[in-house]
């Protein structure tokens, strides 16, 4: 005897089953039991407890929001030199005997400032983009904002230095900004700007 498949049972549950499945389920105790078990599984899934996040992520979100606001403000009004100065104030610290190369860090920060300058040309608040490009740009901006938030959380310049981590964060920032510039360049080329 042929029984209902899982597809049939799900269709029965959704009220979309074939005439054969409906009439078969009426007379077949085994398939009715399978259908009951399906209903029970779904009910049990719905009853699974909610889970609380183990850590509070709001400080990261808040810092990213604040960093993005600062960055937008820079894009709108500041020169590259001012942006570089702020970046320097944000993260400058003596390295002491740390392994990271201060020259490398300075170089990365210069690259970051150059990218900021490039981004200014694309006027992020007045851009016209496809939905997909806008989503990619927004995701990149979010990730940059999170890194800016982390940089800001390094503390005052005289705090305990963590140069390797600092260089890594700046490098990530530069990589993301390069991708963001790429999105804008592609968009500009596409629309002939």
């Amino acid at each position, binding site marked *: 005897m042929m029984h209902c498949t899982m*597809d049939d049972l799900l269709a029965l549950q959704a009220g979309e089953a074939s005439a054969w499945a409906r009439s078969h389920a009426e007379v077949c105790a085994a398939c009715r039991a399978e259908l009951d078990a399906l209903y029970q599984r779904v009910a049990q899934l719905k009853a699974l407890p909610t889970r609380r996040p183990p850590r509070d992520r709001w400080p990261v979100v808040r810092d990213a929001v604040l960093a993005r606001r600062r960055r937008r403000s820079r894009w709108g009004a500041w020169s590259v030199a001012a942006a570089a100065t702020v970046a320097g104030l944000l993260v400058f610290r003596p390295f002491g005997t740390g392994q990271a190369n201060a020259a490398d860090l300075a170089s990365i920060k210069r690259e970051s400032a150059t990218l900021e300058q490039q981004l200014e040309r694309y006027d992020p608040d007045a851009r016209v983009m496809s939905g997909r490009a806008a989503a990619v740009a927004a995701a990149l901006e979010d990730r940059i904002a999170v890194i800016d938030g982390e940089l800001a959380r390094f503390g005052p310049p005289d705090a305990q230095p963590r140069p390797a981590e600092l260089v890594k964060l700046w490098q990530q920032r530069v990589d993301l900004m390069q991708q963001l510039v790429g999105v804008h360049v592609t968009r500009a080329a596409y629309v002939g700007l």
Partner: protein
Amino acid sequence: MTISLAVPDILVARAKSGDLEALEALYRAFETPVYSLALRMLRSPEDAEDVLQETFLEVVRSIKQYRGEGHLWGWIRQIAASKALMRIRRNQVRATEELHEEAAAGPGGSGVPARVDLERAFERLSETSRAVVWLHDVEGYTHEEIAEQMGRTVSFSKSQLARAHARLRGMLEDEGAAS
């Protein structure tokens, strides 16, 4: 998971104006449902935390576009599900997922309540299967909505759901036999 969180309009209006306190209040109201949704869809708590963070970054950026149509939770849930599905796509190596399922699908312990058995069995599914089951069976998404969110076809969503339920059924049967 049934969520019935009522958020005052004034709070949403303040959040739209960029008020950080209001945005934090929204975060506090929805952090648990968002994290729970992400955790059910994804394998790792770390990924779920990242989805929580990405979701609220998006909420903060896009709250001005929320027009108050439907429940705010529905809007935030849509963002969270989308972020979780993006992460699944990023993580996804189908062959690896299959291996995870096979490797994890051993017999369970005995004498545990049915809910725990089901939860454990559910956790053994691939991320794609988990996402489809959770969005369809618990969050009430249609196959059309799931297909659109996943960038796949309706028949893909339906076959994933059937396959996942067949696996759940099999795993629970194994557990029953072992106890």
